[in-house]
């Protein structure tokens, strides 16, 4: 029986394999920031309420604050540092869908996962996914417009 308060986790972050010895009680948020230096993953509440710590686990958005780092074992974690698609980033800039920028990585990651699962998401679907994320600066409409711009572009290309 393992009696230690630490465990080895073996996972990928943005494609890079890591083997880390982590404290069982540490959240994935903590490890990504303090051990891996992935500071784009933002703490906003550490209670699963605000979505600013959103990361993708095997392309599914989860709140990194509501997950132990040990649970990431053998999974793929993506943060915005690892997001290759830049359409969303450009659209957020062009649509003024960011002001202070603190919520932005979370929104973009969530939107990215949404569009990869549901490229033709309607407004209801967008709401369903992105209600996970709080923004205090914009009016949200800009964010929705940014996503819809990308959808149109994708449609145009496909």
């Amino acid at each position, binding site marked *: 029986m393992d009696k230690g308060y630490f465990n080895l986790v073996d996972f990928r972050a943005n494609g890079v394999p890591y083997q880390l010895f982590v404290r069982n009680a540490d959240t994935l948020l903590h490890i990504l920031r303090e051990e891996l230096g992935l500071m784009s993953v933002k703490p906003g509440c550490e209670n*699963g309420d605000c979505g600013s710590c959103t990361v993708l686990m095997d392309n599914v958005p989860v709140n990194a604050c509501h997950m132990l780092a040990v649970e990431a074992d053998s999974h793929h974690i993506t943060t915005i540092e690892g997001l290759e698609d830049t359409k969303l980033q450009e659209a957020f800039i062009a649509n003024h869908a960011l002001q202070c920028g603190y919520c932005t990585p979370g929104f973009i990651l969530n939107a990215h996962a949404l569009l990869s699962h549901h490229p033709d998401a309607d407004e209801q679907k967008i709401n369903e996914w992105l209600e996970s994320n709080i923004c205090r600066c914009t009016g949200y409409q800009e964010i929705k417009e940014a996503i819809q711009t990308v959808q149109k572009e994708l449609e145009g290309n496909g």
Partner: protein
Amino acid sequence: MISFDFLYFRPKSVHEALQIYQDLSHEGLQAVFYNGGTEIISRARAGEVQPDAVIDMKGIADCQGYRDEAEWITIGAAVTLSNITDEINCFPLMQRIAKEIATRNARNKISIAGNVLSSLNYREALLPFLLTDSVAVVAGPAGIKEENTAALFANGSRLEPGKLLVQFKTEKERAGANYFFKKKTKQSAVNYPIATLCAMKREGKITAGFSGICTFPFKDAKIDRILNDHALTISARAEEAIAHLPEKMVNDFHASAGYRHFVLEQLLIEMLEHFEEVS
């Protein structure tokens, strides 16, 4: 940030999970079963719980996935609420309820067992199991047992320490029954319910489940009898049902008892009218 340390285990089988639990108990250590962890992490951060060990159930095959068989649907205890909304189409009431709990990000982690056994008053995902008389597969030191959810979780009870939920089994025909569902919050959709009402109608009989009204989710035979009493008008049935709640209406900062009464009465009437129209 969680200030204390705990041991972490990821058993591969129910048997192993129980064994770990017992071994720890013998050493005087308190373990908790861990699924989505969304509640355990929050409560540990707030200092409300301080387990010595967590036993992560997600590696146990029996607790994972769902099976759609001839007469039964089996839902693993570790299945997430998002899995349910995305996949379990033969249980539409469950899908609806799951979709209105927390946020999508959270639902990607919240497990059905974690919600049913949550320390909060709400435990909304229990309601569809109550209404369908589903079976809970519970494992404990004495082995694996199938128990009726209504009896097992009556009056807000949860599992005895050391027992764990493996699966839920629901009769397919019941799962597909005609349903009504509405959740009312203080204001934003993402919040705890001040009143959740769901109901199903099978063989001409309505059965209703409630959350947010009392300190636990429930269905109640007496209330069901009232709701089906066609001698009474719809609004009389609603009034009467409210008069027979198993507990005083909750009165807290989310909503006053008076307002909850108002909301619930409207929900009951809406539900009764809905079924009246359908039939």
